[in-house]
């Protein structure tokens, strides 16, 4: 099967959160039923971070202007990297790369060690205490197997999300970049084509990567490579020791780590 990719065009996104809800609906991810269990986030971004039961969120960043603001939106979910740190960090082989490019966690195999949550340069996978499993977007493998597009893409009303063979999506992204520049968005950039050997979610950030909260030049932490050498020796038991020592401090470039500490507390 050809490699596939989602393309997200921030210049067309209205941050309606249709994708956020469609993901939860299709994947039957629960939200608290009890009244007022949700935290107030002081923002339209809610929740502030992805969690084991919310795999896609819309992010909102504001830059003040004389009249109004620049209100920059971004889709935050697994990037499905080719050079996937989570996959490399997993001590039990629970994370695999599918032929279509999706990086998928097998819940049956997951031991809840959280190496992947620490390894991911984007802080995407999230661990759930209740069943000691880590979860994230799996690029709707069940839908793809049945000839459908991911749920988030299907629901997008504006065409900000499109899906197709990765080569086509790369071309679409480049066209979108030209269009954005022609409209005067001089800082517009495409993201995901080369990052981490190529992602399976591509982006047009029409006001630039930083404005939309994307990490420039992300890297798999160096220690992960060392870990690759050690892993066969120790297996799971060894992993528990090393994990606490090493991987959790390896990754200083994570997504807004300080800002989102609070919300991580909340979702536990």
């Amino acid at each position, binding site marked *: 099967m050809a490699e596939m990719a989602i393309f997200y065009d921030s210049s067309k996104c209205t941050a*309606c959160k249709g994708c956020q809800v469609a993901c939860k609906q299709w994947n039957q991810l629960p*939200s608290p039923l009890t*009244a*007022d*269990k949700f935290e107030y986030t*002081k923002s339209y971004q809610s929740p502030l971070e992805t969690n084991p039961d919310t795999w896609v969120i819309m992010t909102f960043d*504001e830059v003040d202007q004389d009249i109004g603001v620049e*209100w920059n939106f971004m889709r935050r979910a697994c990037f499905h990297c080719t050079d996937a740190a989570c996959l490399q960090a997993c001590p039990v082989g629970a994370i695999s790369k599918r032929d279509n490019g999706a990086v998928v966690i097998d819940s049956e195999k997951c031991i809840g060690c959280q190496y992947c949550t620490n390894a991911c340069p984007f802080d995407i996978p999230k661990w759930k205490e209740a069943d000691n499993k880590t979860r994230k977007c799996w690029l709707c493998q069940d839908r793809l197997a049945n000839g459908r597009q991911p749920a988030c893409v299907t629901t997008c009303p504006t065409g900000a999300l499109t899906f197709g063979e990765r080569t086509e999506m790369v071309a679409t992204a480049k066209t979108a970049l030209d269009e954005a520049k022609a409209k005067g968005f001089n800082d517009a950039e495409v993201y995901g084509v080369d990052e981490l050997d190529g992602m399976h979610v591509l982006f047009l950030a029409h006001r630039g990567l930083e404005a939309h909260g994307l990490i420039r030049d992300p890297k798999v932490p160096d220690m992960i490579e060392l870990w690759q050498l050690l892993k066969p020796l120790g297996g799971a038991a060894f992993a528990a020791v090393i994990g606490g020592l090493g991987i959790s401090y390896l990754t200083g470039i994570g997504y807004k780590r300080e800002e989102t500490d609070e919300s991580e507390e909340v979702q536990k």
Partner: protein
Amino acid sequence: MTNHWVDLKNSDVVLAIGGNNAENHPISMKWVTEARKNGAKYIVVDPRFTRSAAVSDLYGPLRSGTDIAFLGGLYNYIFENKLYHEEYVKNYTNASWLVNPDYGFDDGLFSGYDEAGRKYDKATWQYDTEGETPWDTEGAFAWVNKPGTPAFTTPIGKTPKKDETLSDPNCVFQLMKKHYERYTPEIASAVSGMPIDRMMEIWETYASTGQPGKAGTIMYAMGMTQHTYGSQNVRAMAVLQLLLGNMGMPGGGVNALRGESNVQGSTDMAMLFHIIPAYMATPNATKHKVLRDYLEKETPSGGYWTNKPKFFISLLKEMYGDYATAANNYAFDMMPKLNGKNHSHIAMFEAMNEGTVKGLFLWGQNPAVGGPNCSMERNAMEKLDWMVAVDLWETETASFWKAPTIDPSTIDTEVFLLPAACHYEKQGSISNSGRWIQWRWKAVDPPGDAMDDGEICTEIVHALKDLYKAEGGALPEAITELTWDYMDENDHLDITKLARAINGYTVADGKVVANFTKLAADGSTACGNWLFSGYWTNEDSMDPADQPTGARDNTDPTRKGLDGGMGSHLGWSFCWPVNRRIIYNRASCDPAGNPWNPDKPLFKWTGSEWLSNDVPDFGNKAADGTETKPPNSTAFIMLPEGNARLFAQGMADGPFPEHYEPYESPATNALSSTQNDPAVVVWESASLGTKDKFPIVMSTYRLTEHWQTGGMTRNLPWLVETMPKMFIELSQELADDKGIESGDSVVIENNRGAITALAMVTNRFKPFTINGETVHQVGTPWHWSYSSGCSIGGSANDLTPNVGDANTMIPEYKAFLVDIRKEEV
């Protein structure tokens, strides 16, 4: 919408004003995006920086309630720079019509004002005429002589005086130009608070659509209508579109974005006090004592509405069936009538408060949260003997007696909560904003005891019929003779039979009519809603899929030599009237019949026949039925003028939109000494406040994540998670003044109530400079209340005023005064 969703893609400039289309009508952005791909500009004018503003090309902030100052200034700019579409204005509007020389306007008041009655005598607003044209009852109007047609004195048309040069000081064009001379850029900016440079940039961009061939569209919603001059706000947009030649154009029009999935359908079916189905006036016991009065007073002298007697008699025939005969005036006396009192939402709750109204049916409505001054409305409900609430969940209204401020032990109201089926649990038609009447099929059975509303209604009607049959009473025939034979073999409501009756049929053979042109005033046809006529026309099937309303051909082919791809989609569902996708579409061509924009032709006169890419809204058929009638300039066939009205006599509060301040305003009217709309009636319970105590402007709105009073969405945890709490958005400057930080609990108060909300301090709100003074505006959603669902919070409508528009009584939800403070914990 005069146009429709898909047609937004044909626009050159899209203006969203008084509506937040990206957030509240997300699908609109699919087509706006399409238009922008082709180079269109998207302008957003709103008091706050919304998600629509975030994706716009141009954003202009405007203080709530100052749209007419902004648009009036734009007219003046258009006149001064001659940017109007001259040929269009001359031929298709009443610009050249002369007005009574006694018409005048002075310091905010039009001539004929009656201060005591707070209303206008409109005699001086009429056209100056020079002759009379009676109906030709031997020719075009011969139908009035047909046996069975009720007798009535036919109307007489007045021949207008016109000045085609548009230079007579009493012609509409000159009167209008003069009226708006006061609306200078400086005044418009000082009143609205929009920085003048940005305002001029927006004006210049939008006025560019006045060039022949260019199209500008306006999208609006409740930000325009929910004001004491809301109807004038809407007219102000229509007038702008006429000046620029945008009405009837693909990519043009005045487009009301409907906020509920079938509110267009419910309006068409007249879920309002002042109209009966398809926009005819509700009979009034004083004005319309007998059928003859109704026909004489409601039938205009010219235009397509001259057919109103056919539509009205056909409606009576459907309502009362065989009982309705020429001899009993088609049962007109049985039809419910207004008693001369105001029966709007606001007035109804006043009447409840006074104890006049003793029972209340609520069908999917939650006024305890959604009504203006809703704590007053909850108190009024205490005085009811009974209430029936039909809903999906126990709403705050169904449980009003549980409100925190109410002591249930003192309330005698008996409340019945009937569980209703939701939209996927029943079938029927849903009319979208673009007037497409689309059939929707049932997916699953409703749970438990929940029932289709139609069936609940049917059970009530049958019980009433039995009671009136058994016990008699005043005018029992009004109920016992009412047609309700839309039942299936198991005696359940068969909605397809109802749909067929709404389409209309000939009484003698029961066969469906092709459309409303086949309706008659002699009792030979029956029709539940003439505008829907044509949506259910297959005589051989009762399957909605075989009917126009169920049609699902999504192609957009080339028709008769005119390119497809215009988004007409004539084979997808049915659009009222007669499947016409863009109304007033004659105006998309010049007087000679050539499309203003040759690249986007809806019609074209070849010299011998009409080519069509839509259903024509003009007489294109010659006497022999072929489409060969040469072009004329009757582009607005519903009006007796045949021309559109820049100057309109039908409005309660003036023939031109004039700026007034909201009833609660931080500003003194800078355009006249008439502070407020002079034709508005205010009840004492509105408890209006002043700026010395309440200096901050507040507006209410909706979020993408929630819907209306939250009855549905606060019960869906997935949606609650995306917007979990009631909040108040305020500027950094105001927050600093008040010592408030994001996340603080804030008390918002005025004379009508006090609520709390969590602070969201943001630069999306900025202080306005109004007449040189700083004015703060805040805003909150109105989705929350004290019970129901996974999230509770303050009800914004505890603060909104129950004061209504001069023409429609829609409440002024969008601009009122409050003060705020940090809640002491």
